[in-house]
């Protein structure tokens, strides 16, 4: 068993808990904003080249290569261009963006300024989950201080480059974490996804080229600019570069936000950092990514945290949540809670998500009441598959993941609850 220090690698969180987050002086004293100065000495293409070389992938969950996204925005025609930080963090079980915003808000601004400079954006928005009052306060203070110190606003530090950032509060909708629903919401419309293509990179906010990325993604940019893409790529595995922030919660002795390099195993996280289930309990299942993520049995925890390794098993860790569930809890009841969540949070736009979630819930209730039939297993599988295959956006595509993965890994829990044949 590895020790905590062997598992953890602090890169993005290196200043967290070390500096006072509301002190721009301490941030600068700890090397903050140096990456902006360095970036201004580089050509936009060079910066994007470094990000590409770093192999940084979006930390929001989809894992799209950030450098390619930046390149697309740089090359897209249209003005002005926008930078949006997706800080909606609505996925249950995730709280790492909150941690970053409240412990090192300037690092996020630093990343956004660099990206804005690289893609040619003049305006930025940080769309923060409505429940995150402290994060908003932290960022509003950071923005004010950055402006007062010349790191935001017109002609930043005499570079000739101007960029401004605003905080925008979400209003409690989960789907607004979906990039286009977020953009719609930011435009003052109901939060519902848009057709793709066109993607936000060419027609995003107000139909202008927009780079929209997660808090953690932007927070990595300064590190890449400072240390270079190759050095960043050296961290982690061949297929996954850098570190991940893990939101560890549920039945573990030590829940919290941990930064680990790619390549550690899920067991390292659950047992090494979390120290396993409390009260001598046995771990029954672990949900990765959040409510929309897969539920796996403890036997699979030897998988490495790595995009490819996880994909090979058909699963994903999304935005880095690890939710541990011990044997005191019933799987069906957990699934019921998850599906109730999606029943509430579906935007209602497309058929499979609007209608599918509640049908899943109805069928789960039959299992809970031990009144289900073989036919229900078939119908459940069928709806889940169709939701994954045909839903308009990621919400509907991912909503049935917990059910689908439990059908795969915990089939006995279903067949054990079929109605007794008379």
């Amino acid at each position, binding site marked *: 068993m590895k020790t905590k220090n062997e598992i953890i690698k602090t890169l993005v969180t290196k200043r967290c808990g070390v500096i006072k987050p509301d002190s721009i002086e301490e941030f600068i004293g700890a090397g903050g904003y140096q990456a902006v100065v360095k970036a201004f000495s580089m050509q936009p293409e060079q910066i994007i080249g470094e990000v590409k070389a770093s192999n940084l992938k979006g930390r929001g969950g989809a894992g799209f290569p950030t450098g390619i996204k930046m390149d697309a925005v740089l090359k897209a025609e249209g003005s002005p261009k926008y930078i949006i930080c997706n800080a909606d963090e609505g996925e249950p079980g995730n709280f790492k963006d909150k941690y970053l915003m409240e412990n090192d808000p300037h690092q996020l601004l630093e990343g956004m300024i660099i990206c804005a400079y690289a893609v040619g954006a003049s305006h930025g928005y940080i769309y923060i989950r409505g429940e995150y009052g402290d994060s908003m306060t932290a960022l509003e203070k950071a923005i004010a201080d950055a402006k007062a110190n010349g790191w935001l606003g017109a002609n930043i530090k005499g570079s000739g480059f101007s960029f401004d950032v605003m905080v925008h509060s979400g209003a409690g*909708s989960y789907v607004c974490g979906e990039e286009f629903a977020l953009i719609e919401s930011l435009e003052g419309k*109901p939060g519902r996804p848009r*057709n793709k*293509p066109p993607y936000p990179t060419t027609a995003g906010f107000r139909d202008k080229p927009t780079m929209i990325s997660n808090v953690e993604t932007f927070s990595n940019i300064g590190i890449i600019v400072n240390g270079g893409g190759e050095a960043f790529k050296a961290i982690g595995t061949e297929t996954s570069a850098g570190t991940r922030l893990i939101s560890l919660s549920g039945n573990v002795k030590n829940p919290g936000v941990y930064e680990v390099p790619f390549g550690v195993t899920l067991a390292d996280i659950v047992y090494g950092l979390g120290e396993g289930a409390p009260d001598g309990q046995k771990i029954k299942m672990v949900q990765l990514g959040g409510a929309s993520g897969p539920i796996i049995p403890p036997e699979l925890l030897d998988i490495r945290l790595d995009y490819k390794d996880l994909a090979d098993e058909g699963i994903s860790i999304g935005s880095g949540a690890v939710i541990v569930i011990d044997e005191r809890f019933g799987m069906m009841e957990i699934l019921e809670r998850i599906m109730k969540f999606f*029943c*509430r*949070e*579906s*935007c*209602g*736009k*497309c*058929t*499979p*998500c*609007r*209608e*599918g*979630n*509640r*049908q899943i819930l*109805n069928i789960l209730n039959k299992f809970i009441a031990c009144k289900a039939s073989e*036919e229900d297993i078939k*119908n459940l599988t*069928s*709806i889940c*598959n*169709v939701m*994954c*295959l*045909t*839903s*308009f956006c990621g919400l509907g*595509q991912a909503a049935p993941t917990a059910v689908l993965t439990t059908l795969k890994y915990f089939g006995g829990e279903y067949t054990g609850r079929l109605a007794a044949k008379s």
Partner: protein
Amino acid sequence: MIELTINNRKVSVPEGTTILDAAKKLGITIPTLCYFPNQKTKANCRVCVVEVDGYRTLQTACSTPVAPGMVVKTNSPKALEARKVNIELILANHDARCLECSRNLNCELQKVANQAGITDNPFESVLVMQDIDDSSPSIVRNPNKCIKCGRCIEVCRDVQGLNIIDDAGRSADMGVVPTFGKFLNDSNCVACGQCAVVCPVAAITEKDEIGVVWEALSDPSKRVVVQTAPAVRVALGEEFGMAPGTPVTGKMAASLRALGFDDIFDTNFTADLTIMEEGTEFLTRVKNALTGGKATLPMITSCSPGWINFVEINYPELLDHLSTCKSPHQMLGALIKTYYAKKINVKPEDMFVVSVMPCTAKKYEAKRPELSVDGIHPDVDAVLTTRELARMIKQAGIDFVNLPDEDFDNPLGLSTGAADIFGVTGGVMEAALRTVYEIVTGRELPFDGLHVKPIVGLEGIKEATIKIENPVADYAFLDGVEVKVAVASSTKNAKVLMDQIAAGTSPYHFIEIMGCLGGCITGGGQPRSADPDVRIKRLGGMYSVDEAKVLRKSHDNPYVKSIYEEYLGAPNGHLSHELLHTHYNKRGKA
């Protein structure tokens, strides 16, 4: 050109083509539900999903552009199963009592369900029955039928510029409702019925008046008189499988007689009469304006009741611009219950007037208390849409397609070509110019085929200038005057011209406005059509009816001349004002 493979067959289509349209080129019709021609891609229903090599998820054919070398399977087991499940999910939240539905056998959901081979829905119904909103005299909203496709929202917002209905709520609570959940009749709805035309199911329909009409027809004490609007004759045939734009005037008259109506009259007659009244009103206003008197110009036509609702709600300060003419069917209703009742010696209260209209707003209009000659009996007792008439003809088992042509009854059934084109945008203006120009100059309108080219066609806003030269003595004051006219269709386009008037910048003397885009040919009561070219085809039909007539100018209608001689006196005279003109109400926004 982009080459791709669909169901193992190669096809080349221009860049930007969707998979749906590319498949059509191969004769493959992928089932759709939210998709509607000439609307934006919504991709909400997820029925048109197809398998595309290289994609993890299925792709919606309506929204996915083709790409070079793309390999598409429209009928793979995966696509078929997904399509079926999505339709089943919709059905599980739909009041699927098809046999008791006005859209039975004419329903897009029913069609795709049948196509998908659904015989038994594995999903339990989750439908929570809601109240039906029948507050409007024109439109009924049945949320229990709604499948949330969004077509109605788009037509109301983007085509009509009204935004009366939108989706509200999330997830299972998502529904299409009027602003702030108001009843439709308490909203700013103008009753145009464009939502009802695009609805794939029976979630938005016209308020059905078939029952009261059958009742009247079976009442021996009633003299039941029917009249038909110009645009009905080029669209009714579609309900019986005929091509859009096919004129079916003779079959329509024959089927109305077969249904048992006592008199078959034509709203066209009073369209001609409208030209006499409105033309005279216009010339009076112009004369006043040019001779130092008080006159409100531009004058705006008043025959589209959706437009009248719109202007009363949105521009209550500008109502003086409206012609005071009642709409043609209200004029005819008034004449039937006075002039004609007297002629045939039937008491007005024993007359029952039915108007067959391409319009849902006409239902609202007929209920206006001011549209009654005696303040008790309405000018028009019931309004049927083109769709409702088709349903009645089907109910009566009439073989419409093979029916020999018959004529309207006289005297209120004769009309000129000028009346026919009331059914298309620009038609009323052209008809008015044919008459006004001749009154003023003593010469025929000097245009090829009497058509005022700049105002013919489907553009939303059109304008023309007519220079008056060598007028007759009575109109010498008009010599050299350039009369500027404009034509708008759809309330969205109307708004553009009204805002000019409100700002004092309108350059026009005379404006024609129709509430629906293209005019009555695509009114809210017309047959629903998936033909993207339906407007232009019906427009062609209207002009062909006009051109086929010997009499093409309203003032040439012999019965119009004689009704003035024997009954009304002069246009805009005392009796005309009493029977044929109305006033408007400053309603303002809800």
